């Protein structure tokens, strides 16, 4: 059990080590660059303020992922609630509906030849429930193990397996809608 002893002066090195992964996870989840930047900064501010809550039972990166994922889920749920309120008005105005406000997002790290397909994947991801989307992205883009995902999502390994199975199933169904002969 090692405790985190983070001082303001050490924060630079600490952030340099972890901010890339946290930012990318937030970017994939939120599909919004500005929000992901804000979340990344908030995560490290929270980590500094609540370093006593780190018990050392998981790795520091898992703990940071947990903070980031919780913050992202909060934002996504707020967006979903806002959209639920807006939906009747949008329907009356004849606008198309999307689960969140983000559209045509492509992660800047995707190779040029895959951009079109990745855009479809990101659109399809918006149709997944938040917990399935989180589990899928942590596994497939962040390459976390089932154990690490279970620690981030504070659930069991079988629950993670089930989430991933359902996520892949739902994702395939969503992607099929975009297929053109």
């Amino acid at each position, binding site marked *: 059990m090692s405790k985190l002893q983070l001082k*303001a002066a050490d*924060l*630079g090195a600490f*952030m*340099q080590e972890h*901010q*890339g*992964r946290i*930012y*990318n996870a937030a*970017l994939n989840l939120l599909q919004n660059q500005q929000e992901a*930047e804000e979340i*990344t*900064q908030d995560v*490290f*501010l929270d980590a*500094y*303020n609540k370093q006593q809550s780190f018990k050392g039972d998981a790795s520091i990166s898992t703990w940071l992922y947990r903070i980031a994922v919780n913050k992202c889920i909060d934002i996504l749920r707020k967006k979903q609630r806002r959209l639920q309120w807006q939906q009747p008005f949008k329907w009356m105005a004849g606008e198309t509906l999307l689960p969140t406000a983000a559209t045509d997002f492509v*992660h*800047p*790290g*995707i*190779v040029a030849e*895959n951009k079109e*397909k*990745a855009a*479809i*994947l990101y659109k*399809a991801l918006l149709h997944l429930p938040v917990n399935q989307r989180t589990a899928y992205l942590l596994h*497939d*883009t962040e390459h976390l193990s089932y154990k690490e995902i279970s620690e981030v999502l504070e659930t069991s390994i079988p629950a993670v397996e089930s989430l991933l199975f359902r996520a*892949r199933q739902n*994702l*395939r169904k969503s*992607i*099929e809608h*975009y*297929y053109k002969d």
Partner: protein
Amino acid sequence: MKKEQWVDAVIDSTRQLAPAGTNPFWVVRVQQKIKQQQETIHTVIAAKWVYTAAACFAALLILNILSFSNTAGKSSKNNIQSVMQQYGFMQTDYYFLDPSTR
């Protein structure tokens, strides 16, 4: 079959994802936020003294009210009597209008 292959290709499109670049100024921003928090803590300590001063004033006010309520009964009675005397209300003659009742 073609459709399934296409779906697989879409799913695999993020497999070789290069990490997006981060901004080195985020560290500075977070450190600035921490500094602001620490300044806010100093303000809270100053606020404690403000509350202490407010509590002292409240205690003084309560003591004043208590001392006033102890003397108010007597003085108000005296004041009323003196005012009545001044205006001649203590002379009950004015109120006996019927001469036979004098």
